[in-house]
């Protein structure tokens, strides 16, 4: 097994771990963390694809690499917005939490 495949599998596992955290953790902040984990798993999949397509004297295909850079920035912007929302909510209610049925809400994924 070469390095690209190994990190690809790592990415796949991280996607799973992140998804699990996103579904089961009711605390919004932890959901945001899980989303970041999920995102980094996806980025590693891009990395695997870039690495195994190495050619023309490059260590990897630069197109997916550039896409990852764009996506990392977008994910950061999303995180910033989500955290600001959580904090405003905490300021308003004294405690950050989406209403209790939220976990079921995301779990709808499981039934589809």
């Amino acid at each position, binding site marked *: 097994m070469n390095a690209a495949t190994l990190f690809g599998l790592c990415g796949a596992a991280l996607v799973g771990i992140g998804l699990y955290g996103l579904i089961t953790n009711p605390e919004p902040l932890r959901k945001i*963390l899980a989303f970041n984990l999920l995102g980094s798993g996806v980025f590693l999949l891009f990395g695997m694809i870039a*690495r195994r*397509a190495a050619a023309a004297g490059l260590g990897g295909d630069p197109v997916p690499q550039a896409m990852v850079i*764009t996506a990392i*920035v977008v*994910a950061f912007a999303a995180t910033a917005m989500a955290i600001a929302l*959580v904090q405003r909510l905490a300021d308003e209610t004294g405690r950050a939490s989406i209403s209790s049925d939220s976990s079921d809400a995301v779990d709808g994924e499981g039934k589809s």
Partner: protein
Amino acid sequence: MSIASVFDIALVALILAIGASTILVRTAFAAVVMFAVYGLLLSIAWVRLHAVDVALTEAAIGGGMTGLLLLGAVARSRSDDVDRVRVGYPVRLAAGGLCALVVAGLAIVVLHPPAAVPTLAPVVMENLPPSGLGNPVAGVLFVFRALDTLLEKVVVLLALLGVWSLAPDRAWGGTPGLQVYAKPDPPLIFLAQLLPPVGIVFGIYMCWVGAKDPGGAFQGGTVLAAMWLLVIVAGLQKAPAISRLWLRGLLIAGPMLFLAIGLAGWVFADAFLAYPEGYAKPLIVAVEATLTLSIAVALAMLAAGPPERAQQQ
């Protein structure tokens, strides 16, 4: 098995363990600390994947800036004393099953690459020389897929406006709440005086070198943003009020210049976002330099959060 592959396997194991622990540990604080470590390990993984540009971005933004944001949020939410409600066992089981399914599906795909792996690397290298850039990733970002990069800058601006929109009405136009936490601490002030000159030089270097080596506007901008935040947190400078014209101007300067040069390409080259022959490199460097500033301001303001106090006249 070579030393490199032993290292890779150990690295992957560590990444997975730390990653899982950010989900499983009990307190949000511990999870965030784990996440910062995770970001660092991940950037090593990117180096191992021969994607140094991505490694820099991951370390600067994915690990550093995101970690900073999360840490700030944990510090404010005092969520340690919240007794966590966990979801029920059946839900966790179902979620686990679903996730295992996804992982299995992705693993199958990873293990079965197409017979002929498609790649755009040769095409990129073939078309790179006219732009004068040496870094193929920068070439993709600023030449071949410039539209994505331009839109992504707009995304960042929108996210910033989204964060600002969460301010109470009375605080609109005021200063972000960041310096509320600034406790003038001698060692911190020392650092905030010593580091920024070095950091600013380094940030500019990162942006400059991005044309031919790994680096670029985002990585450089992140370093500049970090320096600015350090100065603000140490209490040496106030965070600016968000209604300041210079702040707004800096925020849009990069995207505006990018768009203007893109539109000029219509007249002077043959298409929107095309560069006239021979002028590609100076134009791209100008765009990158301005973008670095805009990104630095945008990232710092994103981290500083929505305005909390009305502007004092």
